[in-house]
């Protein structure tokens, strides 16, 4: 008897925390983790809707999101490695050569 609204609210909160993390964190890796957190929130919403609508396709979406997240992680971490190699820092604020 858990209202779908609960799940959605939780999803919104997690999504929001992801946003907060993204603007608050400095380490590029944890920044990326914040994004993963947001994706997780999306997943939660998908599953909740899927259950609420009695449709399974929402859960299929989750699978896709997870795959995409994995792909992003692979590439993203590759980029992070590249950056750290080039810049010797993982602080996103120090990656500011391109500006104005």
């Amino acid at each position, binding site marked *: 008897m858990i209202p779908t609204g609960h799940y959605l609210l939780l999803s919104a909160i997690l999504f*929001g925390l992801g946003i907060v993390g993204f603007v608050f964190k400095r380490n590029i*890796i944890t920044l990326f983790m914040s994004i993963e957190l947001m994706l*997780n929130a999306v997943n939660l919403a998908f599953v909740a809707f899927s259950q609420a609508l009695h449709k399974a396709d929402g859960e299929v979406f989750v699978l896709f999101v997870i795959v*995409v997240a994995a792909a992003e992680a692979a590439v993203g971490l590759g980029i992070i490695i590249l950056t750290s190699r080039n810049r010797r820092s*993982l602080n996103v604020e120090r990656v500011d050569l391109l500006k104005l």
Partner: protein
Amino acid sequence: MTAPLIIFFVLAALAVLGAISLILQREPIHSALSLIVVMVALAGLYLLMGAEFVAAVQIIVYGGAIMVLFVFVIMLLNAGKEERTNFSKLATYAGIPLAVATTGFIAAAIAWSSGSLPAAEPSGALTSTKTLSLLLFNEFVYPFELTSFLILVAILGAIVLAQRES
């Protein structure tokens, strides 16, 4: 208060706390562990809703594979404590408020209209894996096949980016 509800709240609290911890931790590795907590909590919630396959995938792929990748990279790069620089005035002063405002906006909109949502389905009728696979290979076969290329791109990208100069 029913048991599922209690479980929900426990797991929800766990997820939120994990997320907050992710933010507050200064060691990247701690953040990663916090994220794993969130994921596990979410997997619990999926189970609670009856999405067993998704829960499993969540644990195995997300919590397992992806997060291991994170941890691996953290180790590889020997990422130390996060330095809390404040070069961005905008993010320093407006970042959190705006993030909270956005969240509040979204949350409020959801809360406002969750009444109009279809009736919530209590946990019980589990979505069978078969249903999922049928969907996946019928209706969603095209995106599914596309994801294979997506992964190929990811592999290719990772190779391209991470390879050492010859």
